[in-house]
């Protein structure tokens, strides 16, 4: 079937073509039919969804509907949802029913969207393939033998399979952009501080940022309009006015300067990938953009500094998963030490444990300066590369990933190979910049992502560039066969 967008649902709800209850039931039906194979949902909240849909329909009848009232979506399972399992894909939180809503969830509830449930993910968002979930791996709707990407693999797969038109997601090192690329979708990670992190279970606090995965840039803009903004409960959220992200979508691109980092187009890049990205850049030139080669000279520091900083923060953030106040607790602990050791050993998966250990090591006495502090210094250099680049260009373009979606079980036993796949995405998290992934082609019937990187808080410009591309291409309209 053809992709169903949020904009289209919003229009049809407004015109009365169908009700929120009807479209919700349709999606719930599609989930029942198709998600067994894809495994994109951890929890489907059917009853609650229908109640929300009913309320949305009433709200519309009362004339109080906003653009997204009645539109079905779903949340990544690291978003706390009051009264609903919030597992983060982990055995550790497999019994954790959150007692409160994340700010983003609260905002969508206020906007009247309908939540169909909670989406599968790599355990605690640590991973690039959504294979490390306690609830099983997510399949890529384009090829069930392949991964959907991660960590927001459930969000991407569910949207790609049209089980929902849009999903929330989170991105610490590429966890929105990479699965969006692998599943042929539009994903945006806003600037660090644009969206509140309150209630989103932390992996690496200085890198985590909430965003969305949708079919189109327009849909992403509609969702960002709801979720962005300062939150007094998140001290790192920015006290900045939020623009209407749909306002600039139709602006022309004449005069836009696009930077192409030479480091992102090295001889190592797969030629087919290189071709797909270059073709996309040519489309931009046709739209009036100018292209300029730039350099991000510290790109080689990106992966090591990311894996030190994220692991260090992860090691502390995971400490509260101790089996004491919530979550998994081992049977018959003999004392508090035994309770800690066994609850965590049994409750946490191997990738999470690996990062906790790396992080604890990097922070330990005698190693702090050599690892954590060095990584922070490198982070500043990486950030400065971008600051300098944005003196010359408006946006930066490049690949999202070195390859298209890889096979399941191909990399999950090789953490270094898995990490290297994040080479193009993690720099933005270190710098705090906004980035997007849009579908720009196919290689062997698998989607290819184009990454667009914007300057701080210039999400509107990114969305504009993405939208204009989607006006002259049809990659975003393609959907996997048989779904």
């Amino acid at each position, binding site marked *: 079937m053809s992709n169903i967008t949020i904009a289209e649902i919003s229009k049809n709800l407004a015109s009365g073509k169908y009700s929120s209850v009807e479209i919700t039931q349709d999606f719930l039906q599609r989930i029942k039919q198709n998600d067994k194979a894809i495994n994109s949902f951890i929890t489907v909240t059917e009853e609650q969804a229908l109640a929300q849909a009913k309320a949305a329909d009433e709200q519309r009848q009362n004339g109080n509907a906003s653009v997204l009232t009645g539109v079905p979506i779903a949340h990544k399972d*690291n*978003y*706390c949802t009051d009264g609903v399992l*919030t597992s*983060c894909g982990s055995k550790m*939180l497999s019994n*954790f029913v*959150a*007692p*409160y809503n*994340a700010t983003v969830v609260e905002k969508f509830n206020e906007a009247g969207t309908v939540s169909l449930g909670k989406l599968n993910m790599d355990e605690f968002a640590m991973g690039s393939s959504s294979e490390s979930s306690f609830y099983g791996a997510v399949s890529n709707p384009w090829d069930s033998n392949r991964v959907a990407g991660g960590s927001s693999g459930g969000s991407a797969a569910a949207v790609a399979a049209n089980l929902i038109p849009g999903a929330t997601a989170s991105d610490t090192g590429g966890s929105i952009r990479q699965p969006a690329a692998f599943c042929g979708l539009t994903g945006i990670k806003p600037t660090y501080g644009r969206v509140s*992190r*309150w*209630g*989103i*279970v*932390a992996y*690496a*606090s*200085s890198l985590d940022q909430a965003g969305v995965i949708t079919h189109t840039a327009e849909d992403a803009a509609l969702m960002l309009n709801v979720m962005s903004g300062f939150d*007094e*409960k*998140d*001290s*790192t959220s920015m006290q900045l006015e939020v623009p209407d992200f749909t306002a600039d979508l139709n602006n022309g691109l004449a005069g836009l300067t696009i930077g192409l980092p030479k480091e992102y187009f090295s001889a190592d890049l797969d030629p087919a990938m290189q071709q797909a990205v270059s073709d996309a850049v040519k489309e931009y030139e046709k739209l009036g953009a100018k292209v300029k080669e730039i350099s991000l000279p510290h790109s080689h520091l990106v992966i090591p500094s990311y894996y030190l900083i994220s692991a*260090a*923060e992860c*090691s*502390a953030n*995971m*400490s*509260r*998963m*101790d089996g*004491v*106040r*919530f*979550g998994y607790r081992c049977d018959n602990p003999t004392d*508090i030490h035994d309770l*800690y050791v066994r609850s965590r050993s049994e409750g946490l998966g191997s990738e999470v444990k690996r990062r906790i250990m790396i992080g*604890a090591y990097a*922070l*330990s*006495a005698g190693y*702090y300066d050599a690892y*954590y502090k060095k990584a922070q210094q490198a982070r500043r250099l990486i950030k400065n590369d971008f600051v300098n680049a944005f003196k010359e260009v408006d946006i930066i373009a490049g690949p999202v990933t070195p390859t298209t979606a890889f096979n399941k079980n191909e990399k999950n036993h090789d953490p270094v190979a898995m990490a290297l796949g994040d080479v193009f995405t993690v720099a933005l998290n270190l710098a705090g910049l906004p980035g997007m992934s849009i579908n720009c082609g196919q290689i062997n019937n698998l989607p290819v992502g184009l990454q667009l990187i914007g300057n701080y808080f210039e999400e509107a410009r990114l969305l504009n560039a993405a939208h204009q591309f989607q006006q002259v291409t049809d990659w975003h309209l393609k959907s996997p066969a048989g779904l």
Partner: protein
Amino acid sequence: MQWEVVIGLEIHVQLATKTKIFSGSSTAYGADANTQADVVDLGMPGVLPVFNKEALQMAVKFGLAIDAEIHHKSVFDRKNYFYPDSPKGYQTTQLYYPTVGMGHIEIELEDGSTKRINVTRAHLEEDAGKSVHEGFGSSSGIDLNRAGTPLIEIVSEPELRSAKEAAAYFRKMHSIVTYLGICDGDLSQGSMRCDCNVSLRPKGQEEFGTRAEIKNVNSFRNVERAIDAEIERQMDILEDGGTIVQETRLYDADKNETRSMRSKEEENDYRYFPCPDLLPVLIDEDYIEAVRQTLPELPDAKRQRYISEQGLSAIDAGVLSANRSLADYFETVAETINDYKLAANWVQGDVSAALNRLEVSIEELAVSAEQLAYILKLIKDNTLNNGGAKEVFNALLEGKGDDTVACIDTLVDQLGLKQVSDTGAIEAIVDEVLANNTKLVESYLATPEDKRAKAIGPFIGQVRKAAKGVNPQVVMEVLKKKLSEL
């Protein structure tokens, strides 16, 4: 060998903010377990801290009070360790960039001299919860009401040289933080707790000896006793040629001894790093100046003023200025009657005695400062003599009055304490006493001239028995005159 004692104190002061340092929960003491712990205090997944600016203001206030460097930038760090009363698995504190830098205070030594003690730093951090070991069978309970209560940890330089000095330092800090109103100062509720680092070194040696840290001492008396016990323990070991092990110890007040809690090897590697959920705290000179404007007169300044401007003795001035409530009481009295010395005598004397006897705080005393001032005013205008004034004071303590000043007039009337200063009236009373006590008069007249001053005493007693409120000076004069005429 002659040993020199080296002591440094780390004092944890609970700040009297309304809400916790990183959450909106109340900090009030004594609520039912876990009723003052929200999702942040419980360390729930997904929660974030928001820094309470009231705690910052209090820390800066403290820094200014000890003449410390106030850092324009301070940063919260995570101190990682697992313990059930630490819900996040780390404590948020300030390791590398504390809000308050180097400062100093003066302590008064026993000989009346003062000594300057430097304060290394004071940093903001969160308190932990409490483990409850009774009532849960073989398990323990956890109460997180205290978790997240703001603390400043005040770290002294190792400049204290005896247990007495350490206790004086702890007292002085107590005095300062209660003066500032940033801590309720209630030691019994753990509002101030002290870790004592103690070591010995041969006299004259520059290098420090190995230290032991006594954790969580929470009374002035125990600071002194714990340190003395620890000094004795270390000295015994050293005198026997042994070596001190660096370790953390606990003080057992019942046995008056310290015992080992954990050795250095068992110490955690806390893996400090800056907390990514909190922005660096940035303050400018304007902010610091604004806080400075809110500083009250501090104990040292008050003490100096009492001595130099009001002519009080150093001892009186020290005692009266040590506690802000007592000082406020004293000053209200002194300023109302415009007589610091009379006020000092009474507050140091009858008031302090009453506080000790009744075991109440100055706020709880049945005689308000306004009432005492009125009583003293009655002394000054000769309405009451000293004895009468004490009687009214005691009557108030016994609950015979109320909280008004007017009730004092009533009490004076009821008790017949109004002083008679009229010479004519007193002469009549004296005449009567002399007429009724012929034996006393005879023995007086038999007394040699040079010893008669003493022999006049019994007559005074008789006169006052006959009429309570007589002015003693007038009685003396009249008695002398009448007796000399016999």
